[in-house]
């Protein structure tokens, strides 16, 4: 059990509304295993059940059925909370406090004594680039600055596990890169990161494994390279005569020819060499060969749409 940073067994969460008769099944029989030291992407569209799962892991809500373990202990175990931290989606803080005051407040919740507390708070303000705004009320912070304060409060306790809910939501591209770099930095320190997101471009680059959740159910799980394998290669050639179209199509790709201009979309399985040979031997002239890797975005859309069509 303790090999996993997070493990859930048939985790189910139903919200039984006080007024609505039909309960919402936000998470259905979810089995998650997040290894220590990995960056795990927890993906899914709005309403998939990501935040619900995270809240169960933190003990803010309780499972209806099944079990959840965090760092080898049952979810919500208070002693766990010294070793993990959490950045909520769109975090909001006591906004009358200054950046320094809010971090001091959280440091006190962790029981960090003086003089370590002041030192740690200063360090972190510096690390997230907020030293100059340290004495400004959070009310005056931009969204990006608030997110940085959110990250800083996550690092106060030097946690083993960080649970980040939509860490880049609403941030500009530069802030995205900052946060992504910080995430990579944390992995280099051996931390486990559990990141929920539907913004794929950033996560794509840093996650070791991802799970895709849809309507409370896990629809895909795996190493990123495996899930993203199976892209295609596009070839464009000119002065191609019609005779080669048939043999090229027989190689399994899609090919079209207009006025001697050939466009081939070939599976990324090595057969592109033979396409090139055919074009050349018929006197054609290859203009470009370009690989298209599958993006996480593609996978995401395919998986979710496939699931919803059933």
């Amino acid at each position, binding site marked *: 059990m303790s090999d996993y940073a997070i493990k859930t067994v048939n985790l189910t969460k139903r919200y039984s509304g006080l007024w609505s008769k039909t309960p919402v099944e936000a998470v259905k029989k979810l089995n998650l295993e997040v290894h220590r030291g990995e960056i795990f992407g927890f993906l899914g569209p709005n309403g998939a059940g990501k935040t619900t799962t995270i809240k169960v892991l*933190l003990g803010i809500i309780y499972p209806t059925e099944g079990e959840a373990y965090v760092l080898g202990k049952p979810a919500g175990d208070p002693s766990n909370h010294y070793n993990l931290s959490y950045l909520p989606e769109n975090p909001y803080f006591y906004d009358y406090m200054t950046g320094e005051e809010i971090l001091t407040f959280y440091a*006190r919740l962790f*029981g960090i004594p003086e003089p370590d507390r002041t030192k740690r708070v200063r360090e972190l303000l510096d690390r997230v680039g907020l030293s100059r705004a340290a004495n400004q009320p959070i009310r005056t912070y931009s969204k990006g600055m608030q997110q940085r304060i959110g990250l800083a409060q996550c690092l106060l306790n030097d946690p083993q596990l960080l649970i980040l809910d939509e860490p880049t939501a609403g941030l500009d591209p530069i802030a995205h890169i900052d946060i992504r770099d910080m995430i990579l930095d944390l992995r280099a320190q051996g931390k486990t990161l559990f990141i929920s997101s539907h913004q794929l471009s950033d996560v794509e680059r840093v996650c070791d494994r991802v799970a895709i959740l849809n309507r409370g159910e896990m629809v895909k799980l795996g190493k990123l390279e495996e899930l993203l394998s199976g892209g295609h290669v596009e070839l464009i050639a000119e002065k191609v005569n019609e005779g080669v179209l048939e043999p090229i199509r027989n190689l399994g790709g899609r090919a079209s020819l207009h006025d001697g201009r050939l466009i081939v979309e070939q599976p990324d399985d090595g057969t592109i060499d033979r396409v090139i040979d055919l074009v050349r031997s018929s006197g054609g002239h290859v203009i470009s060969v370009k690989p298209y890797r599958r993006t996480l975005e593609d996978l995401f859309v395919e998986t979710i749409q496939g699931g919803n069509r059933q």
Partner: protein
Amino acid sequence: MNATFALAGATFGEAIRKRILLVILLAALVILLISPAFEPFAGRGQRTLVISFGFGIIQLAGTFIAIIMCTGLIPTEIERRTIYTILSKPVQRYQFVLGKLLGAIATLGFVYLTMGLMFLLITRWTLGEFDPKIVQGLIMFFFQSSLLAAVTLFFSTFVSPLVNYFLSGGVFLMGNLMSTFLDTIQRNPEVTPLTRIPVQILTVLLPNFANFNIQNPIINPEQVLTDEVAYLVQTIAYAVIYMVLLLVASILIFNQREM
């Protein structure tokens, strides 16, 4: 314990910045300040008027501030999701509730201190004397409001703020009137036990807010309480015990709560 005090401090810091509470406090201070101007209308002498009017204003402000502040303490934290970062730290739910109550009491302490100082200045100025009984009265009202705060905080763990206004307001009114009502009923021989017993039960269960209204002996000094100090200590002990019970109940409910 550090976490509890940190939470209490944050609660206090936020409460004293709340505009509605500041408006009530300011209004009370202004009314206290201009109250000597009503002097010409004094019927039973200046002393009665200044003191009972002042106490009335202070109690009213304290009551409104206690209810308005405490209906929101926990629901606001949930609504704007500040509670998530707090409960994901090594903070137990009982510490959270305790911190909220301590913060509310500290806020009431601040409110009573400012109103009380103003009141003492006014009475010193208009009556030309410093009456220590006024301090006793202020302390009683402070405990009354603190008990009311605990009642409101208790309700806030399971009802919405709007419902809570009515519930807490209702409990405060009933708690003020029940003992007098029971007295009247008991003196009336025509009242059957079927009516009397439920009233008796309610009187015991509801917090007795009337205990704290000791302004009568202050307004009429001739009317002496048999053992004043004992009465004060008893009443404060009553408030503290009742608050602890409410706190325990609040924590039990809040522990089950999902957010």
